[in-house]
């Protein structure tokens, strides 16, 4: 089958991705009692806070070292220390994550050393400060997310007694997805450490009193003990070993690593459940079997509608992979598959998923929306699946968009869309099918009239 690749180019037209520190912030927001400091100029923190709070509808407090000209020329250590002092004063966090930006990396700031000296200087031995380099020019939010998770584990994990728990490391999914994964684990009586867990911190219930740092998140002591777990399940197939948190736990502490796809769709959810069973020997509860049956039933109900679908799928690699699998299982043909990330693994993984495809498809790596639109133009693509920036395809090419991934800033509730597990997959599939139906019926009468009545000679 044909494939198209986009590589190094002179100009990006309408980005399909954001940058590393944004992913780092999201990872840290899933740690209990955490606060984030971005080392760089003021704008980065403001932009990312805006982007994240539009998606989550939650206050996103991220501090910046607000580097000015002087700090850029002479180094930003004073700002760095003052920033840490001020967020400890105002937020009283239990852990602080420090991320770099393009500016800090370009001027060569060594945040790891500065964090160590700060701890010594302020005599707060044992206070966890995680420093994660996240230069914006080195990758997208997906890479920033995983590399920061890896740094969090590297900073906190300790040699510990082996235990029966399993580590579950997830890509950036919705808060409803996090809760669904926890529900499935609980239903199988599996004790797990979920990393990260922002299901409360980024989707906080309304309460009478406001907390600046919202309760919830993966506990620091749990992360410390991930080294003793009996296995790690990492729902990330496309990421490189060097930024994989699971690969670190395997190399450093010999924790067996199971790298599986995001459990979206029948096949991928089966892999998740079977992996859990294989590791723990847990029995699959009847309720879960019923949910699987209900997904099958739903897939049959909508299969003819789905067969009309020709999709453009874009976003972070793990989201793209999972949506492609779901589409392939249901007769929706993924014709344009695109990510803003630069990943060599994604293509190989996609070839497997697309092995049964009988038509030509385009895989676009490290791409932008101008290229995606080019491929969608007059190609028969009638549905787009991805984050809100895909609204550009709707506006320019009339292709309806099923919102999936991050960011979803032009709809309410994007942060709590359920898409994982058997139940979530059915809900996701229904959203896709109904969008196809909507699109079909809205034009049905006028199309028929035009096609068969108006053209009579």
């Amino acid at each position, binding site marked *: 089958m044909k494939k198209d690749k986009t590589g190094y180019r002179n100009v990006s037209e309408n980005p399909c991705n954001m940058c590393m520190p944004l992913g780092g912030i999201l990872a840290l927001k899933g740690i209990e009692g955490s606060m984030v400091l971005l080392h760089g100029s003021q704008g980065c923190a403001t932009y990312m806070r805006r982007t994240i709070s539009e998606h989550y509808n939650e206050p996103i407090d991220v501090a910046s070292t607000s580097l000015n000209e002087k700090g850029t020329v002479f180094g930003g250590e004073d700002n760095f220390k003052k920033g840490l002092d001020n967020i400890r004063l*105002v937020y009283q966090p239990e852990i602080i994550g420090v991320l770099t930006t393009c500016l800090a990396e370009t001027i060569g700031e060594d945040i790891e050393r500065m964090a160590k000296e700060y701890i010594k200087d302020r005599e707060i031995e044992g206070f966890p400060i995680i420093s994660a380099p996240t230069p914006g020019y080195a990758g997208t939010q997906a890479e920033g997310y995983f590399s920061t998770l890896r740094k969090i584990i590297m900073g906190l994990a300790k040699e510990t007694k082996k235990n029966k728990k399993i580590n579950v490391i997830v890509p950036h999914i919705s808060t409803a997805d996090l809760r669904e994964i926890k529900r499935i684990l609980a239903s199988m009586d599996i004790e797990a450490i979920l990393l990260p867990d922002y299901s409360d911190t980024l989707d906080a219930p309304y309460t009478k009193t406001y907390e600046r740092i919202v309760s919830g998140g993966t506990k620091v002591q749990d992360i410390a003990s991930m080294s003793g777990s009996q296995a790690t399940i990492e729902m990330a197939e496309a990421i490189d070993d060097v930024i994989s948190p699971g690969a670190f736990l395997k190399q450093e502490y010999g924790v067996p690593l199971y790298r599986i796809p995001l459990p979206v769709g029948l096949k991928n959810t089966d892999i998740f459940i079977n992996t859990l069973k294989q590791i723990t020997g847990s029995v699959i509860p009847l309720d879960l079997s019923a949910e699987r049956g209900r997904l099958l039933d739903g897939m049959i109900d909508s299969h003819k509608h789905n067969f009309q679908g020709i999709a453009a799928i874009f976003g972070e690699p793990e989201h793209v992979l999972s949506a492609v699998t779901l589409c392939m299982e249901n007769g929706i043909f993924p014709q344009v598959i695109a990510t803003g990330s630069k990943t060599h693994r994604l293509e190989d993984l996609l070839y497997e998923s697309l092995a049964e495809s009988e038509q030509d498809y385009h895989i676009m790596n490290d791409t932008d929306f101008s290229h995606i639109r080019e491929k969608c133009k007059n190609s028969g693509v009638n549905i787009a699946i991805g984050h809100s920036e895909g609204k550009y395809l709707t506006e320019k090419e009339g292709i309806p968009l099923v919102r999936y991934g991050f960011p979803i800033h032009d709809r309410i509730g994007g942060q709590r869309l359920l898409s994982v597990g058997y139940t979530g997959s059915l809900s996701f599939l229904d959203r896709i099918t109904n969008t196809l139906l909507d699109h079909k019926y809205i034009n049905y009468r006028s199309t028929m009239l035009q096609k068969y009545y108006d053209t009579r000679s």
Partner: protein
Amino acid sequence: MQGLAIQERKESIFTKGEQRNTLTCDTDSISGSVSQRACVYCGARVVLNPITDAIHLVHGPIGCASYTWDIRGSLSSGEELYRNSFSTDLREQDIIFGGEKKLTQAIDDLVTKYHPPLVFVYSTCIVGVIGDDLEAICKAASLKHQIEIIPIESSGFIGNKSAGYRAACEGLLRLIKNQPNPIPPKEKNTLNLLGDFNLAAETWIIKSYLERVGIKLNVTLTGDSSYEQIKKTPIASLNIVQCAGSMIYLAEKLKEEYDIPYLRISFIGIEDTIASLRKIAAALGDEQIIKNIEKLIRKEQEKTWPVIDYYKHKLQGKKAAVYVGGGFKAISLIKQFRELGIEVVIVGTQTGSQAEYQTIGDLVQQGTVIFDDTNPAELENFIIDKGADLLVGGVKDRPLAYKLGTAFIDHNHDRKHALCGFVGAENFAKEVYSTVCSPVWKAIRTGGMTE
């Protein structure tokens, strides 16, 4: 108060009627304070972006372009080119070897593909550090393509958002001053509108008022403007300046260079809209226009006041908190809230000037908290402390207000309804009512599940 734990912040806050009545503003944000400000690049981009037929090319890493792609609601009556976000998408190897070659090629690619009359090239933090010579590259590309390619010096670390406004004004000035042909003489009763960005059609609303009374709007900087229109800037006989924070510098320069006087006006709220229209009429000194304006004011008021009064009846006595970008907006909002029977009890801006804070201080009641470049912790404390019923702010502040059970008004650049002029005053009243009087506040304060 816990939120004021940062000692340095105390200089930027005061309560009217309590000892000190000035504050420190226009300084660098304090490290770790969670400032709401953006950067120099952001300031420059938001001012220039509404120019519809320009290529806006960001020379830097991808993030700067991602976070600013079509985020503002500026509308266009013509070209749509400005709604794209172009970036040289600098990578590691570009940081090491320099990004000049890539920038040149990017300009070549874009000009060949889109044939724009104008390209703005924005510098970002790392470009400022690695030292790419934007000026030289733009000059060479300009000669090659025979169009104007203007570098905007907007590296994020060289100041705050105000520095970006200045950089944008410098860019506009270059554009205006570069005139291939002699400038035609000034036209009577013709004016430029500075500092309006045609958010939700606001430029068009102001334009319609002016046209109704016989005034020609020459060009708006920069809402719904084009290359050709901006070139005609010097033919106006008067400049009216709304968002002074971003445009007063340009107004001063245009006065110096082209002898165009300027007026500060604001079309936010009925009081300021009326005052502004009268100020314009007086400045033009045309009897017919003065008459027409009075007629327009009478006619519009007849329609608008009954609507305002209807809502005022429901909103009387509520208390508002205001945290917006520029000083002019804060000043107008204090007056506009009074039209609805609401007092402002907390007010601040990201980039207000000393003079604007003075005006704010004069306008508000005793006990009102005034601050510059605040942060979420302070906002939280003051909203609770002062018992504010609603907050006016940007996107980032909205969730905080809601978590505190406080109503919220979106007075940001992404809004989808006009807030200027008489129609804007009606929209504003409706929005305040829809958020302050929503049944959800009752729901969160009553009931509960029984054990």
